């Protein structure tokens, strides 16, 4: 049977972009459907009736929702370029740090747009503490996944976005001086064509910054 893969996504959503990167890393051909979150397609509502969120991957008409669930599904279905290691302990570690990024770092970043003055400084301190956790994870490794880009690298792409948007806003959220390994990792992944293809295009970065500052909750997971 011919494989048919569709991705319902949204250009500004890091969760959606994550899945795109995963698809490109495994060289899986797919059809991309851009969702307008204020006017969702009937397909999206049918495929994700409970949460109505993007991204949703539809594989031969079977929908999978939640970015990390999608990525694990992809890893089990297409065995080339594996994202997760084979060892159960290493897998648990990758999942732990991915959850850390999604549950701790991303919400703190979302909060940042809503703060000012002292509160903003404290939030940036919090972000730096979280960055340290990730910096420690990179010790002795080229990528979070070890020798090759993997599961945690895909989730950590948010760091690349921050780095790029930081140079636009002039506000350095990421401390690349304090965390040289993260900086090196950013440089290393940005040399990869697939990574570049999944970054927000330059002309849309201002829009993204503005959207991020309004901290929309409608997107995804």
């Amino acid at each position, binding site marked *: 049977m011919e494989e048919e893969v569709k991705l319902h996504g949204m250009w500004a959503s890091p969760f959606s972009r994550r899945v795109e990167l995963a698809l490109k890393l495994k060289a899986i051909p797919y059809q991309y459907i851009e969702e307008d979150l204020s006017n969702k397609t009937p397909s999206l509502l049918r495929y994700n009736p*409970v*949460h109505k969120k993007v991204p949703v991957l539809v*594989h031969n008409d*079977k929908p*999978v929702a*939640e970015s*990390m*669930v*999608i990525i*694990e*599904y992809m890893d*089990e*279905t297409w065995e080339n370029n594996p994202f997760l290691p084979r060892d*159960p*302990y290493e*897998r*648990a570690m990758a*999942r*732990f740090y991915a*959850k*850390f990024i999604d549950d701790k770092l991303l919400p703190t970043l979302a909060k940042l747009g809503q703060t000012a003055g002292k509160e903003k400084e404290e939030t940036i301190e919090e972000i730096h503490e979280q960055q340290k*956790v990730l910096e420690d994870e990179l010790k002795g490794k080229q990528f979070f996944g070890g020798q090759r880009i993997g599961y945690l690298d895909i989730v950590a792409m948010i760091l690349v976005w921050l780095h790029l948007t930081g140079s636009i806003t002039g506000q350095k959220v990421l401390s690349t001086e304090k965390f040289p390994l993260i900086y090196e990792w950013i440089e290393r992944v940005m040399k990869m064509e697939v990574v570049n293809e999944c970054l927000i295009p330059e002309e849309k970065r201002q829009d993204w910054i503005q959207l991020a500052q309004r901290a929309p909750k409608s997107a995804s*997971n």
Partner: protein
Amino acid sequence: MAEEVVLLDFWPSLFGMRSRIALAEKGIKYEYKEEDLRNKSALLLQMNPVHKKIPVLIHNGKPVCESLIQVQYIDEVWHDKAPLLPSDPYQKATVRADYIDKKIYDLGSRVWKTKGEEQATAKKEFIESLKLIEKELGDKPYFGGESFGYVDVAFIPFYSWFYAYEKCGNFSIEAECPKLIAWAKRCMQKESVAKSLPDQQKVYDFILQMKKHFGIE
């Protein structure tokens, strides 16, 4: 090499219960260590420096943190007995419980931590969420289908807290979600579950103490 499994836990923890159940399902012998959360052990701080929280599963000296990650780990390491997750990738993707995790816990917390109008709202949202979950269950004996699985493990611990929620919020979960209660009682017939969940009255007494401590009446 002999397997050494330790679980750092706190008896009323919904999250700790998940790992207890998973370990019991697989018949794994382990050492249970009760933590005093107001006075965390050096071992806990060493094994979970990022969050400093229980439960922590320590397998041959190596820590695994976060309850659902522990359940998946247990399922992957001891894969030859009582599988908790389906082997088919698509089936596995559709049973992932992660979305229950934060939502139900937060809503339930608000039911016992608040009063007056805030509590009334919390109760309403909590019941709505339970109804959604009951819908997911449908007519199946377990969330996993014919056999007890990952989502059942993730969610059954909440049953030990139902009495406490009901007393605090003055409502009956069985009246609102009879199928869910039937499912819970079915799960409680499993030794792995019955042995892992604390007594509901004990949980309620604990919650009353917590309310006093937080000054909620």
